[in-house]
């Protein structure tokens, strides 16, 4: 026992307690630990996304064509505006969060509560926006068909080069196609909901309407102009777009179609490359989950503020700690925004 008694003054200063390594207290330090590790997790996801995108660089869907919706504006092509709005909302909720921290330093309970409340509202609006974004993504707009090789073919108008919906391509054939479910076949075999149109209906519809062409998932490049089957007029290098085929080539490709794709799920999506939807769901979903937990923690802290817990403690440091987490969520979104919507 006696051996543990120290006599030196300097040791007493270091180990006597009340010391803060790096000038930061325990709670905030641990929040930074968590943020660094979480940042590496997100970098891992985004780097994996980058890997797959580089691997399929020629067939990767163009973000402008996928995310082109805006609330209350049907049929209007508005790429990017909606995500830009979402970015604003998140940055603004970050601002109200720092303002809450700032008010906390001045021990102004009322102000902290108001700013925390605004932050929660901002987080809620962001989550709602993301849900709406997912809804549009899952539902899809134009529809497409999948070939036996697994690539996606979309339909365009031969005069304008604009996309055409499946409902405008297909013609009703009145054929019976029953959905396979467990009580009809083997107990282990079933299938997901059938698409609105059968492969035959789409292919026959295409054959009967000469004004339609097929668009592949390959991004057009000027040195493809000489290739067989590439439409001579509709493809140009003024903007990035997918390659449109000639009528003969279109019909040839359609003979190898085996599936009608509407919207997106984890197996296939109408936008093109399959991994695109998987990464979109996984990364924005993981970020959305962070926002969701952030909102929950903010609500908790908000009630503590209102109940006067931190007033009694004479320190609003908890607000600062959740603030760090909230800003981190905003930080991640800045990167997700760039790599999913801009680049």
């Amino acid at each position, binding site marked *: 026992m006696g051996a543990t008694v120290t006599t030196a003054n300097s040791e007493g200063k270091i180990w006597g307690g*009340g010391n803060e390594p*790096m*000038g*930061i207290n325990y709670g905030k330090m641990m929040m*930074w630990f968590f*943020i*660094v590790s979480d*940042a*590496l997790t997100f*970098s*891992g996801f985004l*780097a994996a996304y*980058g*890997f*797959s*995108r*580089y*691997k*399929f*660089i020629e067939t990767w869907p163009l973000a*402008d064509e996928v995310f082109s919706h805006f609330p209350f504006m049907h049929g209007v092509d508005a*790429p*990017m*505006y909606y995500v*830009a709005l979402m*970015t*604003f909302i998140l*940055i*603004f909720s*970050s*601002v109200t*969060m*720092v*303002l809450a*921290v*700032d008010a906390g*330093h*001045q021990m102004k309970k009322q102000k902290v509560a108001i700013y925390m409340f605004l932050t929660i509202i901002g987080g809620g609006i962001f989550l709602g926006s993301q849900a709406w974004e997912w809804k549009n993504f899952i539902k899809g707009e134009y529809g497409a068909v999948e070939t*036996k*090789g697994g*690539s996606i073919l979309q339909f365009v108008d031969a005069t304008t080069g604009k996309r055409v919906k499946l409902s405008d391509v297909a013609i009703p054939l009145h054929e019976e196609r029953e959905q396979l479910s467990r009580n009809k076949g083997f107990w282990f075999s079933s299938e997901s909901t059938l698409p609105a149109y059968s492969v035959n209906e789409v292919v026959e519809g295409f054959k009967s309407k000469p004004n339609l062409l097929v668009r592949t998932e*390959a991004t057009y490049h000027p040195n493809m102009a000489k290739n067989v089957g590439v439409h001579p007029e509709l493809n140009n290098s*003024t*903007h*990035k777009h997918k390659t449109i085929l000639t009528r003969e080539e279109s019909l040839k490709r359609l003979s*190898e179609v085996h599936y009608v794709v509407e919207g997106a799920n984890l197996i296939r999506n109408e936008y093109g490359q399959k991994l695109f939807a998987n990464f979109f769901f996984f990364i924005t979903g993981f970020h959305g989950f962070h926002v969701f937990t952030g909102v929950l923690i903010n609500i908790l802290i908000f009630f503590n503020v209102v109940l006067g817990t931190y007033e009694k403690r*004479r320190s609003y*440091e908890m607000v600062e700690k959740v*603030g*760090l987490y909230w*800003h*981190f969520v*905003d*930080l991640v979104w*800045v*990167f997700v925004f*760039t790599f999913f*919507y*801009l*680049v």
Partner: protein
Amino acid sequence: MAHAHEYVSNTKRIWKVFILLSVVTIVEVAFGIYKPAILHDTLFLQMNLLNWLFIALTIYKAYYIVWAFMHLEGEKSNLRWSIVAPLVFLIIYLVFILLVEGNYVFDVFKSSQIKWNF
């Protein structure tokens, strides 16, 4: 302990940073919509200048979020470095390795005898 030094409110700086971040976002969206041909068609290290611009602006935004909002500018430099240095070096390393590899796999697919995209 908590009030060893008088805290100075810096709401002015917060709003300034907010305006800065908003302007940068607007610039990004404007570039994303108009896609100036000079930037879009010029490649640097196999990536067009527009994408480089987007990445630069993103890092600029990230810097302000971490420095001003997460208040890293007011922390001791040893804390700052223990947070930023591992992230910066590990991320650059990871991205470099994976993108080079992805590009290689793309080349293998493109020049292979097996038709995979049909």
